[in-house]
C-alpha cells in the first residue's frame, strides 16, 4: 500500500481544525467519538427496566398501598362514626399523641368459631374443587394435546367459549338447572326419579366452582402436555414399560409443573370465592368471602373485616409461594 494512503487513514491530531474552542470540540469528537451517555443509559437504565417499572408502579399504587391501608385498618378499633374506625395515631392534646394499636380484631377471629369454621370450610371446598378439576381436566387436556394439530384450536376454543358470557349469568343459569323444580329434576322426573334437593348444598357449590374454574386447570395443563416430546414415550416402551407404566413414570412427572400451575389457579380464587357459594351454597355454613363481605357491609365493622382479609391473604400466601417455586423450577428445567 502506498504511504500516502496509510497517512490518510490516521486520525488527525487534536486541533487540526484550528485553534478555536469549537474546533477543539470537533476534533475531540472526531478522535474519541461522541460521548457514551447513550451507552451509560443503556447499561444502567435499560429499556427492560422501564418496561418492568410500569407494572410495578401499577402494583404499588393499586396493590401495595391499599394493602397497607387494610393492614392499618385491621389494627384499629371500631367506632360508630364516619369513618367507622379509630385512627391509629390520635392527637390527644397539643403535646401528646396516642398510638392505638389494637390486636383485638385478630384475637376475635380466633375466639368466634364462625371465622375458623369458615376458613376451614373454604379451604376444604377449594381443595376438593381443585381435585375434581384436576380429575376432569387432566384427561381433557391430555386428549386435546394429543389430538390432530388442526383440531386442537377448536377444542381449546370450546373450552374458552363460556368466558364470552358473564360469569354471574353462568352461575345463575345453574340455579335454573339445579333447583328442585329445575331442568335437571324435571328431566329425571320423566324416568320417575327425584326430585332431588341440589340447590343450597355443598354439591351445588362444587358444581359451580368446578364448572367455572375448569378452564384455569385445563389451559396450563394443556400447554404443558402439548410440549411433551413423544419420543420419550417410545423410549419408555422400548425399554419395556407398558402404556400405564409409561404414563405414571414419564408423562405424569413431566406434567407436574402444569398440575401445580393449574391447581393453584383453581385453588387460590376458589378459597376466596364469593359469588358461587352465595348463589348456590348453604346458608348455615359460610365461606370466608361471604363472611368478609357481611362483616364489611352488613356489620360495618371495617377493622374486623380487614383482619379477616389479612388472615385470608396469609392463608393464600403459602400456596402462592409454592407456585412461584415450582414455576422457577420449571424454568430452570426448560433451560437445557
Amino acid at each position, binding site marked *: 500500500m502506498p504511504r500516502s494512503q496509510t497517512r490518510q487513514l490516521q486520525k488527525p491530531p487534536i486541533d487540526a481544525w484550528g485553534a478555536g474552542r469549537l474546533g477543539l470540540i470537533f476534533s475531540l469528537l472526531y478522535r474519541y467519538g461522541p460521548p457514551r451517555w447513550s451507552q451509560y443509559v443503556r447499561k444502567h437504565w435499560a429499556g427492560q427496566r422501564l418496561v418492568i417499572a410500569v407494572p410495578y408502579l401499577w402494583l404499588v399504587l393499586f396493590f401495595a398501598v391499599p394493602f397497607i391501608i387494610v393492614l392499618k385498618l385491621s389494627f384499629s378499633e371500631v367506632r360508630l362514626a364516619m369513618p367507622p374506625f379509630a385512627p391509629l395515631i390520635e392527637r390527644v392534646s397539643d403535646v401528646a399523641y396516642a398510638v392505638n394499636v389494637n390486636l383485638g380484631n385478630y384475637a376475635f377471629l380466633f375466639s368466634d368459631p364462625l371465622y375458623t369454621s369458615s376458613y376451614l370450610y373454604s379451604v376444604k371446598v377449594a381443595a376438593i374443587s381443585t381435585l375434581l378439576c384436576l380429575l376432569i381436566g387432566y384427561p381433557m387436556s391430555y386428549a386435546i394435546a394429543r389430538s390432530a394439530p388442526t383440531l386442537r384450536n377448536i377444542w381449546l376454543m370450546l373450552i374458552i367459549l363460556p368466558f364470552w358470557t358473564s360469569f354471574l349469568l353462568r352461575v345463575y343459569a345453574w340455579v335454573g338447572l339445579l333447583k328442585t323444580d329445575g331442568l335437571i329434576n324435571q328431566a329425571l322426573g320423566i324416568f320417575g326419579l327425584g326430585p332431588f334437593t341440589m340447590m343450597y348444598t355443598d354439591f351445588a357449590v362444587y358444581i359451580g366452582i368446578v364448572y367455572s374454574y375448569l378452564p384455569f386447570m385445563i389451559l396450563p395443563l394443556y400447554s404443558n402436555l402439548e410440549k411433551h416430546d413423544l*419420543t*420419550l414415550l*417410545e423410549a419408555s*416402551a422400548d*425399554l*419395556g414399560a407398558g402404556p400405564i407404566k409409561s404414563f405414571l413414570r414419564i408423562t405424569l412427572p413431566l406434567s407436574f409443573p402444569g398440575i401445580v400451575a393449574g391447581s393453584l389457579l383453581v385453588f387460590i380464587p376458589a378459597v376466596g370465592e364469593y359469588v358461587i357459594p352465595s348463589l348456590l351454597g348453604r346458608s348455615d355454613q359460610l365461606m370466608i368471602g361471604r363472611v368478609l363481605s357481611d362483616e364489611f357491609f352488613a356489620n360495618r365493622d371495617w377493622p374486623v373485616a380487614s383482619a379477616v382479609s389479612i388472615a385470608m391473604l396469609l392463608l393464600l400466601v403459602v400456596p402462592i409461594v409454592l407456585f412461584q417455586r415450582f414455576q422457577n423450577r420449571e424454568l430452570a428445567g426448560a433451560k437445557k
Partner: protein
Amino acid sequence: MTERQGHVSGEGGPPRPIDKSNEYVRIENVTKRFGDFVAVDNVSLSIFKGEIFCLLGGSGCGKTTLLRMLAGFEAPTSGRIFIDGQDMEDTLPYERPVNMMFQSYALFPHMTVEKNVSFGLEQEKLPRKEIDQRVAEMLETVKLSELARRKPHQLSGGQRQRVALARALVKKPKLLLLDEPLGALDKKLREATQFELINLQEKLGVTFVVVTHDQEEAMTLASRIGVMDRGEIVQVGTPTEIYEYPTSRFVADFIGSVNMFEGRLTEDEPNYVRIHAPELSCAIYVDHGISSAPGAAVWAAIRPEKIELTREEPAGPDNRARGVVKDIAYMGDMSIYLVKIDSGKMVRVTLPNSVRQLSERISWDETVWLSWDPSSPVILPQ
C-alpha cells in the same frame, strides 16, 4: 443386475467374519405406505448375529422407517419381520427383545443418569440389588460413573449420547437399533466414538443395526452396509464391496466421488472388455469380463484416487486422457485436482500429498496426462 466379479471375495472381505448361518433378523418383502407415499418398498433383508449392519441412504429414503418397524413403532403395510425366528407382527414395542438408541437420545429429562439407565431394568422387575449392580457396571463401561447423579440437561452432547447407549445396552438386548447415533456430535468426538462403539459391540456381542446418512460413519462402523434409495435396498455388501464394486450408478455416486464416462461396449471377451467412450479419445480397457451384450450402453465409473496424474505421456493406447488442470483443492493429507480433458469433460483426481515440496507438484493450467489401471473402472448398466 450386472456383473458380480469372480474375484470380489478374494479382496476386501468383511473386517470381521460374519457367520452367515446365524440369521438373527429376517425382513421379508416389507412395504410401508403412509397414505400415497411409499416409505419402504418391498424390502427383503437378512441380518446376522453379531454384525454391525448399517442402513445408509439420503434423507427420506426410508431407512428410519425400516428401523422403526424393527423396533415396533410402525407396523409394516405388508410383509413380515422375524427377529430370532419369531414373527413380530403382534409383538408390541415393549415386548420385543430389541432396544433402540434414538437420534434425539430421548433421555428422560426428569431423571438422573442413573435413573435413566435403571429404568429399563426396573421394568423387568429384577431385584434392586441386581439392578444397582448392572447400572453401575454399565456406567463404568461408558465412563459415566462420576456423572451418575446428574440430570440430562447438565450433560454435554457426547455424554448424553453415552447415557442413551448405556440405557439401551444395560438391558442386554440381542439387537440394538441405533438411529443416527453420532449425528449430533462434532467431527473429532464422532471419530473417537465410532471406535468406542465398535469395541463395545465386540465386547458385548450385540447385533447392531445402525441408520445413518453419513457414508464415512457407515464405512467405519459397518460389517455390512445396505444402501437405500427411495424405499428400496439397492445394494448390500461389505464396505469394500460397496465402494469398489458398486452395482449401480446410484451407489457409485452416493458413496465417495466418482468420474462417470458414458460409453458403448465394443469388445466383450470372458477376460476383458473394451468400451468406446465418446468423451475420451481412446477406449477404456477393463481387465475383467462382464455378462452383457456387445453394443450395450454402459457407464464406466472410475474413482478419483485410482487415476494417475503425470506430466509425461503414458505408454499404451488405452486408458488415458490429456487435460489441463483447472482447479486444485488442497486438503492437507491430499489434494483434489479438477482436470478439463480434451473433450471438455471435467475429471476429478485425488493425489496424496506425500512430498512436502510445493515446486514438485502439478500446478494450475499445466497440461497433464491422466491414466488408470485396467482393473480400476467399474462397468455399470445404463
